[in-house]
């Protein structure tokens, strides 16, 4: 299970045009932390093609190295071996081309909603006039529906609103690729569902290349074109890709009764559960103590013979 299989030809696959060029490809990427005995291999042999204009979801259990994967893609971490290529260039550091939305929002608490978004806009579009930049900021605040809260600071916002700000901040940078690192995991179920639909709406308008990392299979199916499971770590690798053949625009309520949706959900969930079971079995097997060689000894009675006692 160490070599990831991508797009394994499947019998049911519908004929479709040749896949567009990959925008980002990861080739045999490995990443671990620490050294010596405490060395912990997080990801091993990751191969992944992110195609132009596609919405790709990576689904995995918590602790399987999802965040490390996003950090690698964002350029915040550098792979130990293998390479990540974007537009024929090896990724060596973070870039404004790859916008990232963090799980914990990471908004700057001393800036208002507008200030947080303006910080990235002012930086990315330095050459624009002041007015252009302000209009750009306003446009994205409106896009995420926060026009009434422009002057508030993050601590005065709910979790959902914070994540909207974070999303607007990243979208406003107009990145080529949008990396969403479990953007909705910290939200309650209702807010989560609302934001899923909003992300879906925004994405269907912009059709930006997007990579979503999530632990929610339903969310992945709702949003993505392809789903790649991440096998649990240590030494996490990618599983086979599942294509999501659902018509867009998608409607969350209608999908609940859709047979394709149900089948896909079962397939992905079953795969993940099976892989985790296997990983646990392997771990149990590996951690079993090596057979101890017993000395050749015969049990012998050390009891004092009765007669001599006392």
């Amino acid at each position, binding site marked *: 299970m160490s070599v990831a299989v991508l797009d394994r030809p499947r019998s049911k696959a519908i004929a479709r045009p040749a896949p567009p060029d990959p925008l980002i490809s990861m080739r045999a990427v490995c990443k671990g932390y620490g050294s010596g005995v405490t060395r912990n291999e997080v990801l091993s042999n990751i191969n992944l093609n992110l195609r132009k204009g596609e919405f790709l979801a990576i689904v995995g259990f918590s602790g399987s190295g999802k965040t490390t994967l996003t950090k690698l893609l*964002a350029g*915040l971490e550098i792979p130990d071996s293998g390479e990540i290529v974007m537009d024929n260039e090896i990724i060596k*550091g*973070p*870039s*404004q081309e*790859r*916008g*990232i939305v*963090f799980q*914990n929002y*990471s908004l*700057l*608490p*001393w800036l208002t909603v507008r200030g947080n978004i303006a*910080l*990235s806009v002012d*930086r*990315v579009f330095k050459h624009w006039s002041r007015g252009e930049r302000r209009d750009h900021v306003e446009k994205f605040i409106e896009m995420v529906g926060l026009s009434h809260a422009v002057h508030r*600071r*993050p*601590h005065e916002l709910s979790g959902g609103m914070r994540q909207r700000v974070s999303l607007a901040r990243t979208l406003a*940078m107009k990145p080529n690729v949008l990396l969403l690192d479990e953007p909705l995991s910290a939200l309650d179920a209702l807010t989560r569902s609302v934001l899923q639909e909003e992300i879906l709406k925004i994405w269907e308008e912009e059709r930006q290349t997007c990579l979503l990392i999530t632990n929610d299979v339903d969310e992945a199916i709702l949003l993505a074109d392809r789903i790649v499971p991440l096998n649990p770590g240590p030494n996490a690798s990618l599983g086979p890709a599942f294509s999501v053949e659902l018509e867009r625009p998608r409607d969350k309520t209608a999908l609940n009764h859709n047979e394709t949706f149900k089948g896909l959900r079962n397939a992905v969930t079953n795969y993940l559960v099976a892989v985790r079971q296997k990983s646990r079995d392997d771990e149990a097997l590996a951690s079993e103590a090596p057979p101890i060689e017993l000395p050749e000894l015969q049990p012998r009675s050390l009891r004092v013979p009765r007669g001599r006692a006392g």
Partner: protein
Amino acid sequence: MNWRGNALKFCDVAGLPALEPFVRLLAGEDVKEQLKGIAKFVVLPVAAVAVFLLLWSAAARTVVTDSMQLPSPTDTWTAGKELFAMHSAQRAEDLKVKQEKTMQAVTLLAQANSVTKQAESATGERKETLLANALVLKKKAVQAANYRPSSAPTFVDQIITSLKTVFVGFAIATLIAVPIGVLCGMSPWCNAALTPFIQIFKPVSPLAWLPLAFLIIVWAYSGTKPGENFFDKAFLISAITVSLCSLWPTLVNTTLGVASVDKDYMNVARVLKLSWSQQLFKIILPASLPLMFAGLRISLGVGWMVLIAADMLAQNPGLGKFVWDEFQNGSSQTYARIAFSVIIIGLIGLLLDRIMIFMRNLVSFGDPQAA
């Protein structure tokens, strides 16, 4: 209803929980609960102060020697009132003298002008003499106009001197400690290099620093005459002693604040590719302000405490010198005055602390901490 929210926010940020129940009462909230709040934050402290005053009075009757006596609260209060009365009397007198001098200057100037006029019509040697006379008169007028009362500093003057000294010392300390702290926080190497100095000098008492500060000031002022310099020598010695002692909390806290900036903020900075200075001014400094201000608050507290001792030793005409002089004088009022100045020193310290808490809460968004 917005004024209520704003007022409550102000109470929170200013660290004044005592005002909160009153605001809520005005806003028409549950009376019983607010009375409980008032009892806790107002009635109880007042009662505690009353008990303290009773104990103090009892102690004042007990602690008596042949020549000295612990001043009672009333003695202290009287002494305090007297100190302020002396201050206003002195001020009134100074004002009177000043007015007299001004009048004198006006008359002198008028005389000088008339003499100059006479000189215009005169000729020869007489003209020279008249002009010289006018010059002398003008000089006298200027002198009178620039008259500064040279009376001994009053209690209020001493308070002001003390505050000036502590602020100058604190400003010097901040200007040194914040940049070094930022440097140490950003570079673990720099921190490792400076840690030994911080560890060794931090616990040193002001009294040990003072002679060294004295030496440095004397060296810096060698070759200049008194009166030529903007700052008085004793003032600078006190101020520098204050800064040497109040440097450390700011330094340590700034280092900590800068070193512990949230990694996520730094990731944001990295994705945006902020330049070094932008990272510093847009991310690192704002993020570390709350801890920095916590350090500044401790620094100012330490500075105020140290100042009294420094004033005593350096003979800087502040509150420390006042206490020391009173102690040396040994009049019947000595101890009452000292007790009064103790209370004043405490109250000013409290005020400074409150101001720093307020400032810290202004910069810590989301979690203003109570004092």
